[in-house]
């Protein structure tokens, strides 16, 4: 047994342990913290499997952003002090059974794989050079499965609409409240002054390097969202009301540019979401930058939650 398989086994045991403690935790807060640790450990596991793109996304979205959303939910529940009675037994049973079915399905797929595992990876590597991209993951996302990628971004906007819809009618179009996260504090203000310049550079780098190496719009967008949230939570920048035209424009600009280039593909490259030859990389980088901006704003507003008060004129 080599030292790296000892490390791998240790990592798997740790992941299973943290996963179990996420379920077993009695308090929602402890469960969320365990979930964040679970996400970070999973990111290390993805690195061990040489899937650095997935690892970055897992760390950014799975651990970071989802963790923040759930911490916000826990804090909101505490503020609301509503009925914190546990869900009814049938509901918990149903959730348990559904989770077990999914786990069993995944276990079957992994433990009993087909004789010859179907893969398109060699075909991707053979044709990647045509797109001008160096990162096969970006190639799959923006060339071969561009429709999925486009719809993924639209789903993000739908999720945001869902959050906004939770607002009572009286404050529709108002300003989300971030007080659930932290009270403004001088130490936090210091961090919010120091970190964003670094973070914004890292986000742009992440998005730019995505064409060639692991990285991309989602990872960059998450960092952008984190920086924006930090500045808003520290109170250095006010939270915009959700009816601001610039905010709504930023939210849709990524998917809109993606869709426009996709539609132009009908004329210029004879298929929806096809790129004219020679311009693929430039167009994809343009789409990625616009998407990074939209994802950043969408994730930031998702974490900010539904509007809570109306803007004073």
């Amino acid at each position, binding site marked *: 047994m080599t030292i790296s398989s000892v490390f791998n086994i240790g990592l798997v045991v740790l992941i299973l342990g943290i996963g179990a403690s996420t379920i077993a935790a009695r308090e929602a807060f402890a469960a969320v913290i365990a979930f964040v640790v679970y996400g970070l450990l999973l990111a290390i596991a993805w690195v061990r499997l040489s899937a650095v793109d997935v690892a970055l996304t897992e760390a950014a979205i799975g651990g970071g952003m989802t963790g923040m959303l759930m911490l916000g939910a826990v804090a909101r529940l505490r503020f609301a002090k509503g009925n914190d009675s546990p869900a009814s037994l049938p509901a918990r049973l149903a959730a348990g059974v559904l989770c077990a079915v999914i786990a069993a399905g995944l276990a079957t797929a992994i433990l009993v794989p087909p004789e010859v595992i179907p893969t398109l990876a060699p075909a991707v590597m053979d044709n990647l050079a045509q797109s001008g991209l160096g990162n096969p993951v970006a190639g799959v996302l923006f060339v071969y499965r561009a429709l999925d990628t486009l719809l993924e971004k639209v789903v993000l906007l739908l999720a945001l609409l869902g959050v906004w819809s939770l607002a009572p009618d009286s404050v529709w179009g108002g300003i989300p409240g971030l007080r659930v996260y*932290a009270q403004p*504090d001088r*130490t*936090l203000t*210091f*961090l919010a002054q*120091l*970190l964003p310049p*670094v973070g914004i550079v890292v986000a742009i780098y992440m998005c730019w390097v995505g064409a060639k190496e692991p990285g991309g719009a989602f990872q960059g967008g998450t960092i952008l969202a984190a920086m924006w949230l930090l500045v808003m939570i520290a109170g250095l920048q006010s939270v915009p009301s959700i009816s601001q035209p610039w905010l709504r424009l930023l939210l849709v600009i990524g998917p809109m540019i993606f869709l426009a280039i996709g539609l132009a593909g009908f004329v210029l490259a004879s298929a929806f979401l096809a790129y004219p030859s020679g311009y693929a990389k430039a167009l994809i980088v343009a789409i990625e930058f616009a998407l990074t901006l939209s994802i950043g704003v969408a994730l930031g507003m998702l974490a900010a939650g539904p509007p809570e008060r109306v803007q004073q004129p």
Partner: protein
Amino acid sequence: MNLAFDIFTVSAVSAGALFFLAGTVGLLRFPDSLTRLHALTKVDNLGLGLVVLGLLPQANGLFSALKLVSIWLLVQLSGAIITQLIAGAVRLRGPHG
């Protein structure tokens, strides 16, 4: 020369790992939140610092080395600030608030 670099890496990373171990023991054994935070910050600063220092000779060029150092600096910054915030919350509301 390579052997010297490798020996340096192994000893510096091991020393860093030792700090991580000590910090974890402190986190588990120290009696209250503030002393536990104290144990944690030592790990961030010294443990990670030694690991990064040890990895520098193995870095793929100057650019990668700079990336490693900036990771250490960013962790230092966030570690120090988060510790300060948690300690502030503990002082304000007590260890269980």
